[in-house]
């Protein structure tokens, strides 16, 4: 595994790689009943990085994401966040460590207004920086400002995704985890959302762990990438480097989705 990297893309923030990883996943095995969904996964996310995890349906991408968040819990292995073992920490306390998640399927609150959804996101932060953070989310996603008093369930898919990311950002996360933000969205909206992620990383040095099926866009965006096949990491490396690998191209890009 290539693990010595430097940032190559000028558009991205330069990650600090001198210290220990911010998020350290070691030998994690997660089971659904008797079925092993994750077969000993190792993932590192350093501060200021965008790291993407790609893989096909059922590879275990979302399972890894949810395992980091403590539901379900891994049967073996450990998860460290900023040096602290969070393997057995309750989910809502993990959120209090400033890990924010935009879960698979967005999971916004459909009958609550956009504003209330964003408020729910700020609960962890204690509403201390609410107004400033709200303004930041609106700069990032101006559409949300237009829809502020509309119910979450009446938004379009792309707007709901923006709301899910915005809600996660309201907690002032140190690590933002996004599960398939491009799922079911038009290419233009996908680009909008990926631009927003890049912008957050560049201007604020936000660390992002991105789970994606859209391998081309994700690898182009990310500093580093991991490929998950059948519950195990098969490849890892720099995003652009992975993009050139023939096995990645064959399996996930089908001759290039450029």
């Amino acid at each position, binding site marked *: 595994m290539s693990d010595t990297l430097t940032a190559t893309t000028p558009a991205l923030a330069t990650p600090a790689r001198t210290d220990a990883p911010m998020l350290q996943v070691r030998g994690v095995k997660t089971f659904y009943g008797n079925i092993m969904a994750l077969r000993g996964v190792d993932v590192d996310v350093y501060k200021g990085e965008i790291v993407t995890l790609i893989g096909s349906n059922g590879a275990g991408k979302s399972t890894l994401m949810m395992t980091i*968040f403590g*539901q379900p819990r891994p049967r073996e292995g450990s998860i460290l966040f900023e040096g602290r073992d969070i393997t057995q920490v*309750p*989910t*809502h*306390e993990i*959120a*209090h460590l400033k890990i*924010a*998640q935009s*879960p698979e399927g967005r*999971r*916004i*609150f*459909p*009958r*609550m*207004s956009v*504003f*209330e959804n964003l*408020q*729910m*996101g700020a*609960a*962890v932060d204690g509403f201390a920086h609410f107004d400033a953070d709200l303004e930041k989310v609106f700069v990032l996603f101006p559409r949300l400002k237009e829809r*502020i*008093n*509309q*119910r979450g*369930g*009446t938004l379009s898919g792309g707007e709901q995704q923006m709301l899910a990311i915005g*809600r996660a950002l309201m*907690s002032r996360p140190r690590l933002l985890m996004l599960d398939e933000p491009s799922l079911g969205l038009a290419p233009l909206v996908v680009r909008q959302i990926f631009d927003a992620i890049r912008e957050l990383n560049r201007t604020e040095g936000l660390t992002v762990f991105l789970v994606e099926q859209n391998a081309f866009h994700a690898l182009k965006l990310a500093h580093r990438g991991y490929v998950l096949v059948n519950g195990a990491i098969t490849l890892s490396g720099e995003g652009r480097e992975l993009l050139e690998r023939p096995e990645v191209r064959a399996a996930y890009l089908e001759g290039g989705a450029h």
Partner: protein
Amino acid sequence: MAVQTADTAPPAAANPVLGPAFKDALIVGLIALGLFGPLIGFETVIIDGALGLAYRPSLLAIMVGIIFFGRLLLNVTLWSPNRKPSTHTGPTLFDRAGTVMGPGVKPALLAFAVLFPAIAIFSLGGLNESRYLIDLGILILTYVMLGWGLNIVVGLAGLLDLGYVAFYAVGAYTYALLATSAPINDFFAGLFGATFWANWAFWICLPMAGIFAGVWGMILGFPVLRLRGDYLAIVTLAFGEIIRLVLINWVDFTNGGAGIASIPRATFFGIPFNAGPDGFAALFGLPFSPMHRIVFLYFVILALALLTAFVTVRLRRLPVGRAWEALREDEIACRSLGINTTTTKLSAFATGAMFGGFAGCFFAVRAGFVSPESFTFDVSAMILAIVVLGGMGSQIGVAVAAAVMMGGMEMLRNLGFLKQIFGNDFDPSLYRMLIFGFAMVAIMVWKPRGLVSTRDPTIFLKERKAVSGDLVKEGHG
């Protein structure tokens, strides 16, 4: 003329109406004949001590005729294939009326509730004559309060609770047992005088009933934390039954099915409503009337109900209230946003149960008698029906639904005029539940999200916008 006006020309794709409609009605009529034949056509009669059959062809013909012509009428009108389907979406007339009149409805209803005893007394010409109406008002307000209490659990937190009557029972028995307890009475008699406990029991027990019920709410909450939807409903249903069965069978403690009688009456903050020299009437220089107590009880339950509404409205604006609503929408999202779903659920159960306990305490003091028979599943079902029909989460909807349901049930007791139509053998009270059932089905068909289905956001940036609940799908998780 090549050009025809739309008025004179029939629609190009008009389907034949009358033929199929007639055929359909005929088939339905035959089915009705087959069904009603044995059910209505025959009647068993006793002839000379033996069972015999009597035939009622005319009644059968009338029934089948009603079905046939009713079906035919529906086929050519409402169900006609040429009828343009309604394409109306968005807020219904009812919702829009609610948005327009919304600001005025609440003060108007509140004013009516406060003035209700006066209205009843003046319109019926006297204290004693108004007793029935004020009693009805107390009944309705009790159910308004229970509805609002359950609304916290079901409407806000989305936890389907079929055993809410358990907390009502806990509150009622808390008061009944404490107020009739001889040791407590003796203890206070030694400290403050012989009548102290009888006069103050209600006011001391009222908060305790709420606290006890709230604790029981948490006790119920713990085992069902992991349950949702149907499973939660079944367990809460069982909990309601367990409480009732314990009340029946623990005879030493609760006096079993015989219940607890001669519970001390409510007092005007320590001043009893009696004809004695220390009574309410004498102290306030009024002629004694037993109605003073009833009117006072009306205002007590009104205050309790308003307290419930006030606390709910305030809680909804606090983080805990918003967490309840978020929990209803999506539990997993809640957890990943850092909300402790355990304490959130328990607080919803406990808060809802507490108001049930208050209402139960009030029930015991009003009736002066409690027995397990008052706390059957019917009561839970009725409260839940009020919450669902009113529109889950809507305060005003629940109040209207409680008034309609309880008031309507009472009105249906007075169907005497139907005897003039159907003759003296007709017992209208038998049809009470039937009409009630029809009304519920009708509401659920036309207003599937309850009478008031709009949910106003608790907080706004610029302006209020009502979005009909019909447009928004239920939360998953």
